[in-house]
C-alpha cells in the first residue's frame, strides 16, 4: 500500500484480506515466495486448506480452519501455537520454506 500512515484501517476494511483474521498472511506468503498473482495464490492456498478461494476471506470460516490446523490466530490463544510455532505449521501445510522457521530449527538443533 506504500506509506500506510493513517490509511491501514481504511484499506483493510475496504479491500484487503485481513491477515491472520482470515488467510491474508498465507496468500501473501505465496506472492512473496513464488511471485503468484492474486488469483493463483488464493487457489493454491485454498487447495492446501481444502476450501474454496472465496472462503479465504471469511473470518468466521478461517478462524475454525486456522484453529484446526494450528496456523495461528489473533485471539483465543490459550495453549494455541503462537509466532514461530504457528509458522512451522504454515510451512508444512503450504509446502514452502519459511526463512525464520529454518533458522529456528538450525538454532535449536531440530
Amino acid at each position, binding site marked *: 500500500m*506504500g506509506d500506510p*500512515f*493513517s490509511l491501514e484501517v481504511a484499506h483493510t476494511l475496504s479491500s484487503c484480506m485481513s491477515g*491472520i483474521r482470515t488467510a491474508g498472511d498465507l496468500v501473501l506468503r505465496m506472492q512473496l515466495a513464488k511471485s503468484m*498473482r492474486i488469483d493463483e495464490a488464493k487457489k493454491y492456498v485454498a487447495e492446501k486448506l481444502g476450501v474454496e478461494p472465496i472462503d479465504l476471506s471469511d473470518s468466521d470460516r478461517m478462524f475454525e480452519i486456522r484453529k484446526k490446523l494450528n496456523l495461528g490466530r489473533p485471539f483465543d490463544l490459550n495453549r494455541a501455537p503462537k509466532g*514461530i510455532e504457528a509458522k512451522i505449521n504454515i510451512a508444512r501445510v503450504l509446502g514452502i520454506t519459511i526463512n525464520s522457521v529454518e533458522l529456528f530449527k538450525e538454532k535449536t538443533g531440530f
Partner: protein
Amino acid sequence: MDKYFTRMGDGSGVYMSAEEIKEDILQGVKDAADRGKIPELTAEEMDYIFEIVTMPGNIVGVERGREVVNTSDSGSCKMTYHANIAMERSTSVLVSEKVLGADSVDIGNMDYSYKAVKQIVHNETPVMELAQLNAVMPVLYGSMPNLGLYTKPDGPVDNWSELLPMAKIDEARAAQEEAVEHAVRDMVFVAGEMYAAGADGINLDTCGASGDADYLASLLATEKIKEKYPNLGVEFGAAGEFVLGMHGKLEYEGTRIAGLYPHKQVKLAEKAGANIFGPVVNTNTSNSFPWNLARTVTFIKACSEVAEIPLHINVGMGVGGVPMTEIPPVDAVTRADKALIEIGKADGL
C-alpha cells in the same frame, strides 16, 4: 442539477455535477493513455469509475471474494516514530498483525535508507529476530535506495545536481554511475543481514527517487539479492509514475530506463527477479479525484495486463489516486482501492 460530493487532488471537498465528473474521468483516461502510450479504458470501465465515485456511503468496498493482500513501506515505523507512541518496533508488528489486520508489515529504521541502515544494522537485526519469533504473518525489512545520500558532503561522490546546472554532463553521469556501485553494495549487505535474521522479504522502497541511476541500482541489487538469497522475497516499489532521466543513458538488459512508465517498469523488475512490483501513479493536486482516479486506473490496468508478478499498488498520500494530504479522507481512499482492484486488476496494495 444534482451535484455529488467528491474531492480535489489536494484532498479538499468539492461538489461536481455528473457531467463534470464524467468529463474529468474521460480526460484523466486520455492523459494516461497519451503519456504512457497505452490503451484507454473502455466506456463501461469509465461508467464504473463514475459509479464508484458517486456511490452513496462514506466508505465503499470490493465485491466479496475480490479482496487482495497488503504490504507496506515503513509500516512498523508509523506507530513508533511517526505517531510517537512509545512502542518498540517488533511490538508494533504484533499490533499490525493482531489489531489492524495487516497481511504483512515491514520493519524499517527512522532514517529509512540503506546507506544509513548499513552502519547500524547490527542493532536492526535483533528487532527482526524478535518479530520473527512472535509474528505469524510475513515480516519484511524495508528502506530506500536513496542514491542522493551518496553525494558529497555526506557521501563519497560528486553531487550531480550541482554538476548538471554547470553543464558538466559527463561528470554528473560518472558521479551517478559511481553512486550506483555504492548503493548496490549497501542494499545487498543489509539484505544479507536481514536474511540471516529471518526476514521473509526485503522491500526496496521508492526505487528511482533520484532518477534512472537510482532505479538501476535497485534492479542490480535485486538481481544480486535473489542470486545470493533465493528464499528472500524482494518487493520492488517505484518512486514515481515514470523514471526521471537524471543520467539519461542508463540501460538495463538493453532497455533505456529513463522515461519508463509502470507497464514497462514492471518488465525490468521481473527480469531482475523481483517477487512483487509496486507501481506508482502520481496525484495531480490541481485536478479532481475522479480525474486522478481514472488516470491511475488506466496506467495500472495497462501494467496489470503485461505483468507476470503480483502488483501491489502504492496508495499512500499523493499516489494511486489518493489525494495529496497527510490524513487522506477514507471516502477517497476506499474508492481508489475498489477501482484499482476491480478495474485495474491489482493483486495487492
